[in-house]
């Protein structure tokens, strides 16, 4: 797998959606600057948003004393993004599948599966407090 060589973008934000959105915008600007195609851009925007909301809401539980750390390494070929919160983590395997007949009318629980569907590689680290996600710019030169 390619690794990103540029110096990564780093952010430390409070547990606040507005600050999360600023980080999302900054990273997406970088994605655009590196000429990511429409599908990769859509995927990264979606996954990043879900990861940020989860870190702020489920991880830090909106605690103003806790921060979320974000790191993005972006090259024209690939984007690697890490989002880390200061919560208690969670077990990926224990999140129920939202696509089963029993669960499809439940209001919550689609963020994690969307992240995994749209990114090429996803690792949950540090007991679930840190997520690392990788997406190739497969649209480049298509």
């Amino acid at each position, binding site marked *: 797998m390619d690794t990103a060589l540029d110096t990564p973008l780093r952010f430390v934000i409070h547990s606040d*959606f507005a600050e999360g959105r600023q980080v999302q915008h900054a990273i997406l600007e970088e994605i655009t600057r590196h000429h990511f195609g429409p599908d990769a851009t859509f995927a990264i*925007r979606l996954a990043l948003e879900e990861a940020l*909301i989860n870190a702020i809401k489920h991880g830090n539980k909106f605690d103003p004393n806790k921060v979320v750390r974000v790191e993005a390494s972006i090259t024209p070929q690939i984007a690697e993004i890490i989002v880390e919160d200061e919560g208690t983590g969670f077990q990926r395997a224990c999140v129920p599948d939202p696509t089963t007949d029993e669960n499809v*009318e439940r*209001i*919550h*629980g*689609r963020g994690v599966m*969307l992240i995994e569907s749209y990114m090429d590689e996803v690792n949950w680290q540090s007991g679930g407090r840190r997520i690392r996600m990788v997406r190739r710019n497969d649209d480049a030169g298509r």
Partner: protein
Amino acid sequence: MSESPARLNVTQQKDVSIVEFTENKILDEMNITEIGQALDVIVQSKDRPKLLLDFANVDHLSSAALGMLINVNTKLKQQNGQLRLASIRPQIMEVFVITKLNRLFRISATRAEAFGSFE
């Protein structure tokens, strides 16, 4: 419908309430709560409500927005109402397919087709 926030454009055609999302991102949790409340008002305003949501302008969607749509659908069903989604762009359609919510919602290609599909 002057109460509905600027991000919705609501028109009434026969007995169908047609709601057009006017912003391309209906993602922000705050927006979503507001939109959900505005749709609730429409749903609760009559018996057997018919609601048509036009997604032509929507080019991003979060899991929270999906939850809001499921919520609206559930409330509609409780009142014997009907929900139709229309004009969903390809990238957004992918989100519905991946989450298998295209099996829960009735999705039509165009607003006219959705309109014609109410029972």
